[in-house]
């Protein structure tokens, strides 16, 4: 049996939305090097819509795939919807992750939320 699903391998081999947004409206970084995973998310938000999203990740195959999938799930979506993203949704969209890799999907959810928090703190607190 393969280590990861085809979907995970696809997102790992060809990660979507890799890179940096220089004039991002929100930036979030979670994880730490000691644990072996760091995710950084950059958001561009126009009229409460996530018009662009980019990520950088230091981590294992499933961390890279989870970051990539999370960006796909929120791109073009309203901010309110992105706030609802769960790690479960990320893992499911990847056709599942091994149990001991579920924390990668948690990290992806946290990275998105951290970037959104940064956006709110910079652009007022119209969270609703």
């Amino acid at each position, binding site marked *: 049996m393969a280590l990861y699903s085809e979907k995970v391998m696809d997102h790992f*081999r060809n990660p979507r939305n890799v890179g940096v947004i220089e004039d991002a409206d929100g930036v979030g970084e979670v994880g730490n*090097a000691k644990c072996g*995973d760091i995710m950084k998310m950059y958001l561009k938000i126009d009229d409460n819509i996530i018009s662009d999203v980019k990520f950088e990740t230091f981590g294992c195959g499933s961390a890279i795939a989870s970051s990539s999938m999370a960006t796909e799930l929120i791109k073009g979506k309203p901010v309110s919807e992105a706030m609802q993203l769960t790690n479960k949704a990320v893992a499911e969209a990847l056709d599942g992750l091994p149990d001991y890799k579920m924390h990668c999907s948690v990290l992806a959810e946290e990275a998105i939320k951290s970037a959104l928090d940064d956006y709110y703190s910079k652009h007022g607190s119209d969270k609703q």
Partner: protein
Amino acid sequence: MIYADNAATTKMSEAAVNTMVAVLNENWGNPSGLYTLGQTAKEVLEKARQDVADAIGADPREIIFTSGGSEADNQAIISAARLGAANGKKHIVSTAFEHHAVLHTLKKLEKEGFEVTLLDVHEDGLVRVDELEKALRDDTALVTVMFANNEIGTIQPIKEIGAVCRAHKIPFHTDAVQAIAHVHINVAEDNIDMLSASAHKFHGPKGVGFLYVKKGIRILNLIEGGAQEKGRRAGTENVAGIAAMATALTESLKDLDKTNEIVKKRRDRLMEGIREIPHCALNGDAVKRLPGNVNFCFEGIEGESLLLLLDDKGIQASSGSACTSGSLDPSHVLLAIGRVHDVAHGSLRLTINEDTSDEDIEYIIKSVKEVVEYLRGFSPIWRDLVAGKKQFIL
């Protein structure tokens, strides 16, 4: 496909496979049987014992066949601990970077009231003999130090350690799983009392190994049952596996110096090529290491993604990152030589052998360079390092 994980296991040699199949077909009797079929199997078994003994300069009566290196390690350590405890000796000296077959056995003994001193292996991955001698006590029951490390390949000063143990009359065991058939070992010259080995690390089959126990050193059996192995290890002998192990061992030693000369040259070229990558570091001493072992840490990347991308390029290797160990901590070996977590996660072990060609080496170098550069390209740590927001460690 380039297989560069020979420290994990090796492909069986053709000769070893042939031996195994021949024994399975022709000498399948139980060596304990008194009839012809049993006795011919017994002959095969004893011939293998002689060959294995010859390979390390031992007497055949000093060889106990086991299911592999882990069993041999367990038996040697537990036996020495029990016998020591009977004489009021409940202290064991070992090193911080032993294989888990040793470390976990020591952990178990600690819970039973033994005291364990784990020696520092320093930045170069080498035990200091004077530090070892200082750690010895009147109640030391055993010293166990691996011959060569399984991750970083560093070769320990075994002969000197053995001499110190002899002088202090303390039994000395070495886990030689990675070293045997890769470097010359002579148990008499190297002052070894007990030695563990595993066949699948030298082109033999999995599930078979042996424990050398010097005449005069008592050994307790762990597995109760029949009188096989002179009552020191019960269970009907894995005759085909044992015979194949003997074939593989004899074959490996035949042209060892010549083979090692070639492998070392390729290993050194591999190290030289990988060293060109900025902010990386070789793990373990560059010279006192196994002929086929190369182990590097790369800053700013994580080992599992490195392995998966190398696999995509047809290169099979391993890493000491947490993600490949199934735990949250990276390799205890890399931590023992002082690598901090941040860079220990980004390690790569390549273990080549005589089948790894010069072209393979160049392809590996090129591929590792490409993959490291690619992964650094979207690593937030790397960005911070390059931007000067963080200090480079390597």
